[in-house]
């Protein structure tokens, strides 16, 4: 099978010196292999080694306290592991499990093919139990995004969407770097493959719904 465009693009990013993605460091090995570990585990020699790319799903599923991670780009990736992979193809499979969908979105962005969806549009599209989320007020949305998406404790993605069609900033509570794909959202200051957020995730939509329902209850 020929290398897919995504694998080629990943190879190029690595060649350009992008050896970090989110909380993960990628280290080139001999014979085209790669070794991955948590960036904060650099230099440790007591890491538990794995060789199956699919192992990434298991590593990413729970945090250090054993709690399920509903948001894979939250800054709570488990530590203590090392994953050795045979090829760029395997690397792509593993990264797609650690940070699902982020490589494809990054490649689309690099090719000027990424379109971001304003938060208001995402909310307005919802049906069923999430339809009510669209009723969230401006002030509440500003606070919610500022807290929920913050890189420090919330989510390591770089926000590419705006709050509405007029280009309102997603939240005045977030620093300018939160919208800069060149910025390392972990704060470690390295060059990274950014984790881009081109559209609000289902978790943020669910939080918006909760916020509206809380308002309704308080208003009664």
């Amino acid at each position, binding site marked *: 099978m*020929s290398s*897919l*465009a995504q694998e080629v693009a990943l190879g190029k990013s690595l060649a350009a010196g992008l050896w970090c993605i989110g909380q993960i460091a990628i280290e080139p090995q001999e014979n085209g292999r790669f070794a991955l570990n948590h960036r904060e585990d650099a230099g440790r020699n007591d890491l538990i080694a794995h060789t199956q790319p699919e192992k990434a799903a298991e590593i990413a599923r729970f945090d250090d306290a054993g709690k399920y991670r*509903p948001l894979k780009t939250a800054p709570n990736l488990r530590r203590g592991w090392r994953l050795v992979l045979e090829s760029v193809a395997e690397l792509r499979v593993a990264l797609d499990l650690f940070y699902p*969908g982020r490589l*494809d979105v990054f490649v689309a962005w690099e*090719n000027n093919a990424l379109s971001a*969806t304003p938060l208001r549009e995402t909310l307005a599209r919802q*049906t069923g139990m999430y339809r009510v989320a669209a009723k969230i007020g401006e002030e509440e949305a500003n606070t919610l995004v500022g807290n929920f998406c913050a890189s420090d404790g919330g989510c390591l993605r770089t926000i590419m969407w705006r709050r509405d069609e007029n280009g309102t900033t997603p939240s005045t509570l977030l620093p300018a770097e939160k919208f800069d794909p060149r910025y390392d959202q972990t704060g470690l200051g390295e060059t990274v493959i950014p984790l881009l957020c*081109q559209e609000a995730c289902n978790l943020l939509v669910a939080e918006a719904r909760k916020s509206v329902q809380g308002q309704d209850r308080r208003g009664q």
Partner: protein
Amino acid sequence: MISRSCSALLIVGHGSTVNPDSSAPTLAHAAEIRRRGIFADVACCFWKEEPSLRDALFFFRDPGIREVYVVPNFISEGYFTRTVIPRELELTGAGTTRHGVQVWKYCDPVGNHESMTERLLQRAREVAPGAAEAETSLLIVGHGTELNDNSAVAAKEQVEKIRALDRYAAVLNVYMEEPPLVSDWLKLTGTKNVVVVPFFISDGLHSYEDIPALLGIESGSDRGRHELHGRSLFYSTAIGTDPKFADVIIEQAKAFDSRKPVLQSAS
């Protein structure tokens, strides 16, 4: 026709923000299908997990990929297959052309495939090896009628098909929250052996805790045989965790191309 050079597969799952086991079977089936090398690319996306259905709009940007088979890993047609998936994936019908050259083919949900009956039968045989079918009641557990969901209808159809084979002493539908209730299994059956198969995509809290509690066996207890009230009760994992589900996903993708043209224009 599926080709390993220009066809891709997108498996759409529900996923969960609270249940770590929800997406595991979908990911496992994707890994298995990827391993077989039938498609140029295989990906998953989820309603409640990452990657999202919206992320999937940026997948398969390789110019060599000419068709994307979108297979919902759902038990039946319903709110998700009719409303959420087409909306989020911006599908305009059975076939949607993207970037001028790529066609996204919207397949039927996995649970609809005709081989599902055989999967349920095989599951029942695996969980209760040696139990004579003529002395066994087979209970198929469905969710019930939540949110415009046809899973109860799909479960009924399966029961009717299995009943028509006339192999088991009895074949019954049971539900968790509406009659006939799974908790009434003892009253509903009169045979020595009772086999219970959840007609679900994944082993969520329902099949780990709720159903065992309703059956009167310890929650999270081992699947397999339980001796209760002088009967042998055999409890299976959710049908969607069956490794052979990967075959059904592939079959459902193939079935798209053999659909009659009149069906292809339906949205």
